[in-house]
C-alpha cells in the first residue's frame, strides 16, 4: 500500500498498533480471561437490550403523543409551564429515579423498566414539542389556506417537518437509556451492570471490562441503528443527511 498522505500514514500506524495490542493481549492471556466471561456477556447483553427496548419503546409511545398534545394551539397556554415541569424532571439523576421507583414498585424488572421509561420520556417529549413548535408559521398558514384540516396539517406538514428533531430526541434518549441500564442491576433487574458492579466490588478489572466494553459497544450500536432509521424515514427535503 503506497503511502501518499499523513492521514493514510496515520491509518496504517493505527492498524499496526491494534495488531500489536492484539498480540500483547493474546500473549498475556487477557483474551482467554475475557473469553471466560463470554457466556455471561451474551446472556446479560440480551437482557440489557431487552430492558432498553421495552422501556425505550414505551417511552416513545407515550412521549411522542404527549409532545404532539402539548404543541396544539388549544393548550398552548399551559404548554410552556408543563414543559418546565418536564425539564425539572430531566434534572433528577437517573439513579435517584431508579431508587424512587424501587421504593414504590419493589425490586426486579418492573421498577427498572419504569425508572428507565421516566428517564427516557422527557428528552423525547421535549424534542417532539420543540420540533412541532418550530415548524414555520408560514408553512402552517399555507397548509391551512390550501384547505387542510387540522389533522391533515399535523400528519402531512407538521410531523414530517419536525421528524428530524423528534428523531434527534429519540437518539439522545436511547443513549441515556442504554447508559443507565447498568444501574438497573442495583435494583435487581440484571443487565451488563452485573459484571461491572461485581467487577468493581471484587476489584476484578477483567470482569468489570467484560461488562463495560459491551455496554459501550451496545450504546454505539443502538446510536448507529437510530441514525440509520432517521436517514431512511425522514423525508429527503428536510433531511440534512440526504441533501445533495
Amino acid at each position: 500500500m503506497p503511502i501518499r498522505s499523513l492521514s493514510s500514514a496515520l491509518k496504517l500506524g493505527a492498524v499496526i498498533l491494534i495488531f500489536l495490542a492484539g498480540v500483547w493481549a493474546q500473549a498475556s492471556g487477557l483474551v482467554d480471561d475475557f473469553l471466560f466471561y463470554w457466556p455471561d456477556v451474551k446472556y446479560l447483553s440480551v437482557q440489557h437490550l431487552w430492558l432498553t427496548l421495552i422501556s425505550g419503546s414505551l417511552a416513545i409511545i407515550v412521549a411522542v403523543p404527549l409532545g404532539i398534545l402539548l404543541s396544539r394551539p388549544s393548550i398552548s397556554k399551559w404548554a410552556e409551564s408543563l414543559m418546565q415541569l418536564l425539564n425539572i424532571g430531566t434534572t433528577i439523576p437517573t439513579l435517584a429515579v431508579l431508587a424512587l421507583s424501587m421504593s414504590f414498585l419493589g425490586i426486579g424488572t418492573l421498577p427498572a423498566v419504569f425508572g428507565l421509561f421516566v428517564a427516557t420520556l422527557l428528552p423525547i417529549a421535549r424534542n417532539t414539542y420543540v420540533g412541532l413548535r418550530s415548524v414555520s408559521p408560514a408553512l402552517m398558514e399555507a397548509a391551512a389556506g390550501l384547505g387542510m384540516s387540522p389533522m391533515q396539517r399535523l400528519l402531512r406538514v407538521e410531523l414530517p417537518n419536525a421528524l428530524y428533531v423528534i428523531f434527534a430526541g429519540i437518539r439522545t434518549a436511547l443513549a441515556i437509556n442504554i447508559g443507565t441500564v447498568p444501574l438497573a442491576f442495583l435494583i435487581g433487574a440484571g443487565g451488563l451492570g452485573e459484571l461491572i458492579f461485581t467487577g468493581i466490588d471484587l476489584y476484578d478489572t477483567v470482569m468489570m471490562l467484560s461488562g463495560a466494553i459491551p455496554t459501550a459497544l451496545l450504546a454505539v450500536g443502538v446510536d448507529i441503528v437510530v441514525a440509520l432509521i432517521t436517514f431512511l424515514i425522514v423525508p429527503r427535503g428536510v433531511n440534512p443527511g440526504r441533501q445533495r
Partner: protein
Amino acid sequence: MIRLDNLTKVFDTPDGAVIAADHISMEVPQGEICVLLGPSGCGKTTTLKMINRIVRATSGKVFLDGEDTSGLNTEDLRRNIGYVIQQIGLFPNMTIEENITVVPKLLGWDKNRYKVRARELMDMIAMDAEAFLKRYPSELSGGQQQRIGVARALAADPPVMLMDEPFGAIDPINRAVIQDEFLKMQAALKKTIMFVSHDIDEAIKMGDRIAIFREGKLVQYSEPDELLSAPKNAFVESFLGEDRALKRLNLVRVRDVVSDDIGTVDVTDTLATARERIDSHGYRDAILMVDDRRRPIGVISRDTTASQQGYCRDHTRGLPAVVHLDDDLRKVASLMFAHDTTWLPCVDDHGRLCGQITQRDMTHHLGSRYRSRRPARPVVDGDRPAGS
C-alpha cells in the same frame, strides 16, 4: 366575482379593542385583479385573510360568485380559493409534484388526473416538468419557488385567488419577469384575484382596480388611471407620491397618443424637396426619411438642406430611436431624454412607420385628464409643432 359586505375585524388587545378592518364593502368583478394597497397596518392583509377565514371576521359577509360563503365549511371554502403568500410556504418535506398536487389530492382526484394536471401546470409556469417535479423546494431558487407557489394555488383551477404580497420577497429583476408571466397567464385564465401589495408601481402594473386602505378603512377604490389622475384626498395623494403623473406614463400606450400626421421624405427625394416639406409642415429643424417600405431609416436636418445640394440618401443623420405602438409612455419619455429629442417616430409590428409621438402630445394627453376634472378652462389645441 368577490363581494365584501361590511366586513369588519376587531382585535381585542390588552390596550383595548383595535379595529383592523372597518366595514369594508367592495366588489371585484369576474376576471379582474384588484390590488389592496396601503401602508403597513392599514388592514389590507386582514381584509384579504378574512375572505378565506385565516382571520375570522367579527362581522360582515363575503360573497363569491354571488354565493354567501358563511354557510360553507372552512376547508371546502379554502379548497376553492387559490392562496399565495409572501413567504411562499412550499412544504419542504414534499417534492415539487407533491406540493403542486396537494389541493387536487384533498379534493380526491384520482392519481392519473392529478399527475397530468401537475405537468399542465409546469407548462403553464414555463418550467420543465421532467427536470423539476421530482426535486425538493430547497433545491430551487426563490423565483422558481414562487412560480411553484402560484402553480400550487392554481392546481384545482379555483375561480378566485388571494395573493398576499406574492412577489414581495423576490429580487427586483426576477419580480418584473414573474409579474409579466403572471399577467400573461391571467390574460388566459381570467381568475378573479385579490392581491395585497405595498408597492404602488406593482399595484399600477398588476391591478385592474386599486383599493387604497388607511387605518382599517377603504379610502378609495378605482381604476389605476382614475386613482392617479383624481386622488380622493390628501392621504391618497401623498401615498401615491409627488411623481404620480409620471407613474401614469406606465398606463398609457403609444397607441393612445400617436399622431399619424407626419411629413417624410424618400431616399430618392432631393434636399430641395426636403426643405420644402420641412417648411410646409412647420418643423423646426429636421424631417424623417423612410425607405420604399416606409420603414424609418434616418433624418435630414434643416441645416443640411440649406447648405448642401443633392439627394437625401447622401445626407442623412442616424435615427435616434423608434418606439413601438405597444410601448408605454414611460419608455418613450426615457428615450426622449436619452436622445435629447422632443419627438420620436412610431412603428407597427412590421417596422413600418405609422406616425410620431411628441412631448407635447404626451403632456397634453396626461394633462387633459386633470383639466377635465377642474372647473372649465379653455384647452388650447392649436399649436402642435412636430419635430424640433
